[in-house]
C-alpha cells in the first residue's frame, strides 16, 4: 500500500510531515587546530547529551558531530580517527591546508544535515550541555541564530575582556550591524540558514555577517563560558593581528557606515562653504570695507567647497563599489525558510511545563 500526495502546508500538518519532523536533528561542528588534549573530553560531553536525548522523550537527536581538521599542528587527527572507530556518528573532514577557523567552520556546516547546527570550539570553552538551553531560547522566542555570551569575564583578565568588548562595539558602529556585539564562536544556527550563509562565504566574507544577510532573528543568551586555554596559559587563540583581520573582514562584508558618514560630512562642508561664500560675496559688493585681507576667505571657501564635493563624489563611488562587492559576495535578495518544525519542540516544552506544574500541585 503506497501513500502519496504528501504535502507540507503551513496551515496543517499531514502524516508525512509529522513523521519527518518527529525529531529535530542537531549537528555540531568543531574546527580542530590544536585540540588533541581537549578532544576526548569534548566528545565525551557531546556523547552525554546525545545519549540523554536518545534516552528521553526530548524530540531531539544529535545526528552527527562534525570535526574539521584545519591542518592541525598536533595529533588531533589521529585522536579523532581513533575515537571515530567506536563512534560512527563522528564525521571527520580533513582540510588540505590551514584555512583558518571561520573557513573550517563554513566547511563543517556545509557538510551538515541537521535542522540546527551548533558550532563549538575545540578547547572546552563551550559546553555541549548548554545546547539545550540555547535551543529552548531559540525556539520559544522564534530566533534563527543564538549566540552564547559569557556571564562573566571569559578570560579572567579585565583588559582582555574589555578590549574584546570595545572592539565589538566599534565594529558594530562602523558596520551599522547591532548583532556584532553578540558574535561568538559558540552559536546555534538554524541549519537551512547556516548552510545558505556558508554557501555564499568567499574570500573576505565574515561568516557571522553573512548569517545576518539571511536573518534578522538573532539573539544572544548569557551562559557560563570560560576560555580555559587562556586562563591556564595566558595565551589566546585570538592575537591582535587576528582581531584586525576579523575587523577588516567584517567591514568588507558590510555596507559600511563610514562611507556614508564621509559623504555626509563632505555634503555638510559643501553646504557650509556655499552659505559662507554667499556671505563673502555679499560683503565684497555691499560692505567691502569689512574685509581686511583680500582673497584669503575666498580661497578657504573654495577649498572647503571642492573638498566637500570630492568627498560626496567619493562616497557615491564607494557606495557603488560596496554594492558590487556585496553582489559578488552573494548577499541574497531574498531567502525562504521554514520554521514550522519548531512546533514539535514548542509542544514538548509546553507539555513539560504543564507536567512540572501538575507535579508541583501534587506535591503541594
Amino acid at each position, binding site marked *: 500500500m503506497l*501513500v*502519496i500526495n504528501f*504535502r507540507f502546508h503551513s496551515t496543517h500538518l499531514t502524516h508525512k510531515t509529522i*513523521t519527518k519532523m518527529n525529531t529535530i536533528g542537531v549537528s555540531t561542528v568543531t574546527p580542530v587546530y590544536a585540540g588533541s588534549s581537549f578532544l576526548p573530553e569534548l566528545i565525551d560531553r557531546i556523547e552525554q547529551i546525545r545519549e540523554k536525548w536518545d534516552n528521553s522523550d526530548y524530540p531531539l537527536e544529535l545526528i552527527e558531530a562534525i570535526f574539521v581538521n584545519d591542518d592541525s599542528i598536533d595529533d588531533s587527527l589521529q585522536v579523532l580517527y581513533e575515537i571515530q572507530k567506536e563512534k560512527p556518528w563522528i*564525521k571527520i573532514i580533513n582540510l588540505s591546508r590551514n584555512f583558518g577557523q571561520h573557513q573550517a567552520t563554513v566547511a563543517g556546516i556545509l557538510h551538515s544535515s541537521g535542522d540546527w547546527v551548533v558550532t563549538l570550539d575545540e578547547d572546552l570553552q563551550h559546553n555541549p550541555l548548554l545546547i539545550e538551553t540555547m535551543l529552548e531560547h531559540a525556539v520559544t522566542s522564534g530566533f534563527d541564530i543564538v549566540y552564547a555570551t559569557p556571564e562573566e569575564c571569559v578570560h579572567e583578565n579585565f583588559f582582555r575582556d574589555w578590549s574584546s568588548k570595545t572592539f565589538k562595539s566599534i565594529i558594530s558602529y562602523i558596520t551599522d550591524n547591532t548583532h556584532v556585539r553578540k558574535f561568538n564562536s559558540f552559536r546555534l544556527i538554524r*541549519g537551512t540558514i547556516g548552510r545558505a550563509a556558508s554557501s555564499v562565504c568567499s574570500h573576505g566574507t565574515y561568516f557571522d555577517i553573512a548569517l545576518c544577510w539571511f536573518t534578522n532573528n538573532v539573539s544572544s543568551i548569557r551562559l557560563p563560558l570560560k576560555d580555559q586555554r587562556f586562563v591556564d596559559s595566558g595565551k589566546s587563540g585570538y592575537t591582535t593581528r587576528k582581531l584586525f583581520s576579523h575587523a577588516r573582514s567584517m567591514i568588507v562584508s558590510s555596507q559600511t557606515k563610514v562611507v556614508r558618514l564621509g559623504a555626509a560630512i563632505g555634503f555638510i562642508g559643501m553646504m557650509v562653504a556655499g552659505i559662507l561664500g554667499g556671505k563673502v560675496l555679499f560683503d565684497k559688493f555691499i560692505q567691502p570695507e569689512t574685509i581686511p585681507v583680500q582673497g584669503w576667505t575666498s580661497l578657504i571657501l573654495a577649498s572647503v567647497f571642492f573638498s566637500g564635493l570630492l568627498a560626496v563624489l567619493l562616497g557615491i563611488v564607494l557606495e557603488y563599489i560596496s554594492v558590487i562587492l556585496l553582489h559578488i559576495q552573494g548577499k541574497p535578495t531574498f531567502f525562504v525558510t*521554514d520554521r514550522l518544525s519548531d512546533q514539535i519542540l514548542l509542544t514538548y516544552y509546553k507539555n513539560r511545563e504543564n507536567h512540572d506544574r501538575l507535579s508541583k500541585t501534587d506535591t503541594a
Partner: protein
Amino acid sequence: MIVFQKQTQPDKEIQLVVLFGAGLIGSSVCNKINKLGEYSSTLLPFSWNNSAQSRQDANKISLYLSSILASYSTDILSSGKIAFIWTAGKAGFTASETDWHDELANFNTVLSIVKHIAEQFPEPLLLFHLLSSAGGLFEGQRLVHNSTPPKPQRYYGQLKYDQEKALEQLSRRITKTIYRPTSVYGFTGASQRMGLISTLISNGIKNKVSTIFGSLSTLRDYVLNDDIATHIRNNLFIKHTNEDVFFHLLASGKPSSIYEIRCFVEQVLGKKIYLQFHSTPETDNSTDITVNASALPPAWTPISVKNGIRCVHEKILSGSDLS
C-alpha cells in the same frame, strides 16, 4: 538495449555485456565500455511501452545471446562471464501507478532473459548489475547508512524496491550488484531527461527560468553520472563471487542545498540564474535525503559537486543543441 561482445582474444574476462537503458547513466556506461576498445556493440530492439512486444523482443534477445554463447568453446564458457546491466528508468519521481506496473513488468521480462540463459548455459558466471535509487528508497531520511531500511514514499521508490526484491530472488548462481545512487546529475544530450543541475546550467545559458519542485533549503547528495558509470565499469572487471548481493550506496557524502547548487551554477556561468518555485502534491520533492560518508563503497571516488558542475557546463557548451 545494447549487446557488447568481446572482440579480442576470449579470456576469463567478461565476454558479453547486455545493457538495458541508455539514458543518463546507461549511455555513460556505454561510452566507458566502448573506450576499452575491446568490445563491439549491437543494438537490439526492446519495447519499453508495449509489454506484449517487449516479451517478443525478449525472446529474440534470448535467442541472439544463446547463439553467441553456443559459438564459444567449453573452455571459454567455463571461465568467462556475462554481465547484464539494468540502467533503464523511464519513470521518474513523479511516476504514476501505471508507470510502476509497466516498468516492473519490463524489468521482470529482462529477468526472464537472464533466467533463460542461466538454465541453458550452466557454466559461465552471470552477473547482474541493477541501478536502483537511494533517492527513491530513502526519501526523507537523513544520514542514510548501509543498514538503513528503505522506506519508499511514492511509486518511484516502490518500483526500485520491488526491482531489488525481484533481483534478490534470482538463483544464487547469479552475482547481484545493486547500485543505489543519490541525486544523479550529468548531461548526455538535450534530448535526454535532465536533472536539476543540468537544467539550471542549460536554462542559465539560455537566460530561461528554471522551475524548482522543492525549496532552496532542500538537502540532497549529488553524484555525477560519469562517476557512477566508471564505478559500474570497474565493478564489471573485479573478481566476483556468487555468494551475496552487493549493495553500493553511491553518494558524495556531502549534502548540498539547492541554494548552494544555485550559487555554484551562478559562479560557473558568471551570471545570475532565474528560478521559480512550484509545488503541487504530485510534484513536491522537497524532503531532505543525505548519506553518511562512512557508508560509501571503498573503490568509489566521486568528484566534488563544484567540479562536477564545471564538467556538465563544459559538456553542455560543447556538445548540445541549445536551441
